[in-house]
């Protein structure tokens, strides 16, 4: 049970970063930290004690395997995470070219 709690604390650290930081790149890093904790939680749920990796050995029919379903979900989520991070980076670099800063509060002031 400790592992689940630590995993959630990692999520909370990412949330804290998103709420309190003002630098756009740090917000992006915190978002990916939250993503990673979700992936870790799903992989933890699928683990079975003493299970093997989900590659079926046809010679040995009584082996226990870990649950392949959360792994398949996380596999697609990781690649989507890369695409969304890249899109976030595109938005951020575009904002930097326009306003010359990463600070969101300064950007708010400049717009008025």
């Amino acid at each position, binding site marked *: 049970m400790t592992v689940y709690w*630590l995993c959630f604390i990692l999520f909370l650290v990412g949330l*804290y970063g998103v*709420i309190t930081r003002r630098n756009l790149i*740090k917000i992006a890093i915190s978002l990916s930290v939250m993503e990673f904790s979700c992936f870790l939680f799903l*992989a933890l749920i699928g683990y079975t*004690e003493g299970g093997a990796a989900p590659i079926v050995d046809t010679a040995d029919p009584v082996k226990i395997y870990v649950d392949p379903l959360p792994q398949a979900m996380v596999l697609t989520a990781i690649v989507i995470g890369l695409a969304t991070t890249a899109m976030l980076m595109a938005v951020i*670099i575009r904002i930097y070219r326009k306003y010359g800063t990463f600070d969101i509060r300064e950007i708010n002031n400049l717009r008025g």
Partner: protein
Amino acid sequence: MELAISVIVIFMILGAIYAIHASDILSAVIAGGIVGYSLVICFLLLKAPDLAIVQIVVETITLIIMVAVVLDSSRKEAYGKFDTQAWVTAATAVVILAILFWFLKEASAPLAPFGENTMRMADAYVNGAVDKTGSVNLVTGVLFDFRGYDTLGEATVLVTAVLGVLTILRIRGRK
């Protein structure tokens, strides 16, 4: 097993805290890399080699893109003195985190302990899956046969993200 993963997760938490509080953006990006690469070790310990392969390559390319963006612009953290509004934000964050943690404590009570399989439907995906899909790798079987719709949706999201990046970044249209 639980102890080893706990140690690595504590390491990840420390890396994340440093990444949030670093005064140089480049070191913040690299400290964010600690979290991603530790996740690879966690996946290997949890018997998920597919995830480990994907995560290690994706983390490398994310780092390349982030470092390119940071080197191209400013490396300074624009976070000067701690004024009133910053205190209010930090206090709000702490209250929200406390409430969420209490919620976790309540919600995690019915969860099975670590190492016992929580999901009842896993049996349908493991037993006899080789006869149904013909694939030895169970993850590929789930990905493309049992849950093909998910993969199609994921590919669509990827195409949309690429179109978004092209729309945002191209200044002039093509000739």
